[in-house]
């Protein structure tokens, strides 16, 4: 995969000079795709590409990634976000300062010392080298690296190991056996591996066989030297096919093979289950210890001597049970204490309510008395007014000879005299009450 070309100066600031990648090279090796010979510490693994760090860089949050991995991730984030904020792929913290921090030299040294296979292993190169040297190996020594053809007029490439054959290897030649045409450089591979007509010989019986048939022949060859079926379980017997059949009838190990195989499978299954259980157990243990921590203050309240005395003469399981029982007991005490406190609070509250209601009752009776006296007052006033009206009617009957207007005047004047009297009496009563 090629890194997308940097398209903004911001990204360039992150992409600091990468010395290894800037050296002019015919064929830069992508160190992230190498195959590692030995298992490596998982702490050296980049979380993005899942291979050991290549040119590691450290972000502000102290997370480390390959430079190219973090660049790829960030340019992808850039493409998507309009606000130009990027965050750490691991912890999602915002990265304010895109300048990268170097990692300690020792980390680079450890990484450079990891043993890797030559990237051209698929062509046949058996080389295993330190990762720091693999570029050098491919550039200068690898027999399977492509180099320019030794012929000056030819622009094609050949494998380095074929240079010694001299001359241009790009002339077209025919395979002697199958008559198909190849470039000279490819002929050797063809005749070794692919040609269907070339004759080879069986390594066991020396009978000439066609190359394409040799696999089938080796499986059936009566002279082939075969190992006992139980070879992986320790039988060292090896013989030609017919003799082996006889051996298989007598070899005790061979008879055990199906059984052993079953056992192995079972063992593996058990190991896997055990691993799972161990994992679960560790999770449970941590949660148990956190529970214990939260419970510990109340555990201190427990009567210590009694619990330790019983714990000493019973097994560890009983002591835990006992411990839990003690916890339970102390919790029960706590609960009873709490309920006592609650009932006390309850009594207090009901006393308060009673006092309050008594006071309110008193107030109510006061108010009732006041209302009664007001009713009396009203009664008296109403009767006074009725008397007044009767008097007015009598006066009107006496002066019936006079005009209607004067009688109306007298009525209104008598009303206006009465009102101020009532108001006065009202206000004086209120004053006394207050």
């Amino acid at each position, binding site marked *: *995969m090629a890194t997308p070309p940097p398209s903004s100066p911001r990204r360039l600031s992150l992409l600091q000079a990468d010395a290894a990648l800037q050296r002019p090279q015919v064929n830069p090796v992508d160190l992230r795709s190498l195959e590692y010979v030995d298992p490596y510490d998982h702490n050296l693994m980049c*979380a*993005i590409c*899942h*291979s050991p760090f290549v040119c590691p860089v450290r972000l502000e949050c102290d997370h480390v990634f390959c430079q190219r991995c973090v660049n790829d991730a960030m340019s*992808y984030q850039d493409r*998507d976000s309009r606000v130009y904020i990027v965050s750490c*792929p691991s912890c999602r913290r915002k990265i304010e300062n895109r300048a990268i921090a170097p990692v300690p030299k020792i980390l680079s040294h450890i990484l450079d010392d990891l043993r890797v296979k030559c990237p051209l292993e698929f062509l046949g190169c058996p080389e295993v080298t330190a990762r720091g040297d693999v570029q050098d190996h491919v550039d200068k020594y690898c027999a399977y690296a492509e180099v320019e053809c030794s012929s000056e007029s030819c622009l094609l490439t050949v494998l380095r190991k074929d240079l010694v054959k001299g001359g241009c290897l790009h002339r077209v030649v025919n395979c002697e056996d199958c008559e198909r045409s190849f470039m000279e450089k490819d002929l050797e591979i063809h005749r070794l591996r692919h040609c269907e007509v070339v004759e080879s010989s069986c390594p066991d019986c020396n009978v000439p066989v066609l190359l394409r048939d040799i696999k089938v022949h080796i499986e059936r060859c009566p002279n082939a030297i075969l190992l006992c079926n139980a070879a992986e379980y320790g039988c060292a017997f090896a013989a030609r096919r017919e003799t082996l059949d006889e051996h298989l009838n007598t070899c005790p190990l061979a008879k055990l093979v199906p059984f052993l195989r079953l056992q192995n499978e079972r063992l593996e299954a058990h190991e896997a289950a055990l691993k*799972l259980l161990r994992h679960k157990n560790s999770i449970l243990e941590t949660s148990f210890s956190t529970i214990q921590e939260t419970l510990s203050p109340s555990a201190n309240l427990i009567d210590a001597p009694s619990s330790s005395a019983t714990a000493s003469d019973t097994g560890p399981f009983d002591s835990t049970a006992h411990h839990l029982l003690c916890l339970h007991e102390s919790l029960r005490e706590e609960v009873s204490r709490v309920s006592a406190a609650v009932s006390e609070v309850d009594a207090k509250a009901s006393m308060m309510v009673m006092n309050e209601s008594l006071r309110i009752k008193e107030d109510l009776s006061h108010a009732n008395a006041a209302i009664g006296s007001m009713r009396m007052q009203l009664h008296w006033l109403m009767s006074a007014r009725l008397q007044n009206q009767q008097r007015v009617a009598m006066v009107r009957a006496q002066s019936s000879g006079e005009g209607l207007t004067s009688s109306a005047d007298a009525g209104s004047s008598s009303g206006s005299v009465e009102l101020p009297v009532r108001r006065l009496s009202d206000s004086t009563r209120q004053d006394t009450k207050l």
Partner: protein
Amino acid sequence: MFASKRLGKELTKIHQTLPPGISLVSASDFKEWQMDIKVLDANPLYLDQTYRLRFRFSNNYPIEAPEVTFITLSSPSRTVPTHPHIYSNGIICLDLLGTQGWSPVQNVESVCMSIQSMLTGNTKNERPPGNEEFVARNTQRPRDIRFVYEDATV
């Protein structure tokens, strides 16, 4: 190239060990994998059910999120689990799978575990609001749909 290297490494690890309830069904290439997941606790909504997840990877994985959906099969019987964030066509509304929520440090196993725990914690036997309309109209690829992740409990 980068994607297949990374997926190759994940596959090696998956063949060695996988969390309980998660299993690999097929991974014949580095374009599409299928995984089966089960809900382990006794959530009555998903009891004794196995669901099939389909992962599709672009060449830019893990920089780009994989496309993860539930698929329906007749044999073995696989359905789309009912969940307020899973549409009936299998599209999952999980911020981890969107362009914004994805991080290249995630992997197939961690995605499966997130989806598993999303099912484990669910108590509502319902589809997302507007499910029918969404299923009938949507032609976008799941990754490009901009869901609104309105609640943080997903």
